[in-house]
């Protein structure tokens, strides 16, 4: 159910992006501690992308 997922409405494009708020918080925290944390960032992106894919498949 989309209501259970954190969503951020993009101001200009106006559509909902699941998990992006959660992701942003964690990602910025990683980058603040480690400015070169691209590896961790990639892992985080994979994790959230997989969550979205799983939820989308369950919903279809």
């Amino acid at each position, binding site marked *: 159910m989309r209501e259970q997922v954190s969503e*951020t409405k*993009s*101001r*200009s*494009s106006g*559509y909902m*992006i*699941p*998990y*992006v708020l959660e*992701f*942003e918080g964690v*990602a*910025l925290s990683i*980058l*603040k501690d480690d*400015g070169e944390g*691209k590896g961790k*960032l*990639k892992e985080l*992106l*994979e994790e*959230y*992308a*997989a969550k*979205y*894919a*799983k939820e*989308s*498949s369950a919903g279809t």
Partner: protein
Amino acid sequence: MRLSTQRRVLLELENIGCLNHIEVAFRPGLNIIKAPNASGKTSLIRGFTSMFSDRIPASHILALDKVNGTIRVQYDMAIYEKNFRRTPSGSVVASGDTLPFADERSFDACVALAETGVVHKITGGGAGFRGYLESLSYGNHYSMIISSAQDLANELSRELAGPGFREFDTLPLLLTELTNLHIRRDLAKEKIRNLETGHEAGLQSLSTDMEEKTSVLSREEAHLSGLKRDLTREEEKEQQLVSFLEMTDDSAKVASQIKDGIAKSKEKRKGVKEEIGKQTELIDSLKSEIEALENQIEQEKEREAQQLEGLKREVDRIDKAIILKEEEIQQAESFPLDDLKYHGRLVVEVRSEITKKIEWLDKVIEHFQEKYMRRMTTARLSFNRNVTKAFEELNLKGFENVFLDQDFALHLVREKSVQQPVETLSASEKLTISLVLMLAAKQTFLPDFPFFVIDELTLSYDPERFRKVVNYMTKRVPYVIVSSLASIKAGGLQVVYKTQNASEIVPEIIAS
């Protein structure tokens, strides 16, 4: 965090740069570090800087001929200590505390050394400041997220074009081939059914014929038996008549009758024998026909068996081809069980999953691109406002406006709106611009950072202009630290204080 602006900051250095041991104190206001060349001004400043920023490498801080070094800062009843250690391989490792207001961005906005980004850029004639504002506004974090998301999306797209998914594209053809095999098998099975039905009908017909003929044969054989009995009776009758004749006188009347009787019997016997002959022929013909029918039935059965066997072999071949085709389809439909990433999962599922991931990443990229644009626009506009304010308040002659345009390029506007390229500025003007930009950056992004450090930038500076800039800073930053070259006659390193209201310079030498 706002440092107490009423207290001294005590700094102690041990084996840092060219300094064996030194203690200095910084007070609120202007702190001038005066010393001859190679006396440790830069070492002191770099050491102090390392307590709130890691930008200067530890190997540039520890004394070159020492294995261990220490920096201690005391303020507000707390001591912060950082240690430097040279490893056997020669590298230098730093460990310990940082000051509570430490911020990596402070090196770019509050520490004016020759190697500081802004100073280096402007003195080198550079005018692009996107990177500078990115790191100060944390816009670089957004651009890293965007870059990482784009890399991952590209990687996933390449994976979709890979071999595992290409085999999946042959699936429609394989399914068509499988369907054709099923159709062929169904046709073969139908032929078998038709064959069995047809043969059954044919055999039934032959069997019926045979039964009828067998029945006729039985009747005819019975008739033949009857004829043979008749013949036997006639033979017996004739024998009796012959016996009677032998017992009778030839001249008697009855002898003539007996002779007639014998003649009739012989005639009848002849007729029966003829009939028996015909009947026997008939029976033989019937037997031949029955034998022929039996042979025909056998041949039909054999022919049917051969045809059925052929069709069943074809069905077997098709069954095997179907099994192989289904295996081929399964291989195209699923990743191999020993695939390290997908372990036998269906290709269509994995493809859908990857497509969804790319979809999410595209949304994330767009979202953070918007955030980046907003962040950078806000940062640029705020920065420009503070730059304009600084120039207005400094009232520096010669500059009407200094700002970053939409591409983050620096524009210098002289009086009467004449644009001047950065690289054509004098050394003094370049330094002024650098310091004002840094101060504007500090006001925009680090308003509460309590220090501003300037090192070795005063050598060719216009004294009047420098004094203006430093006084301006002193009113806005709690602690301003400036290094200044002194003659050898002045002695060792000393820190001179000047507060806003001080009319005299108060010397303080603690130790060296």
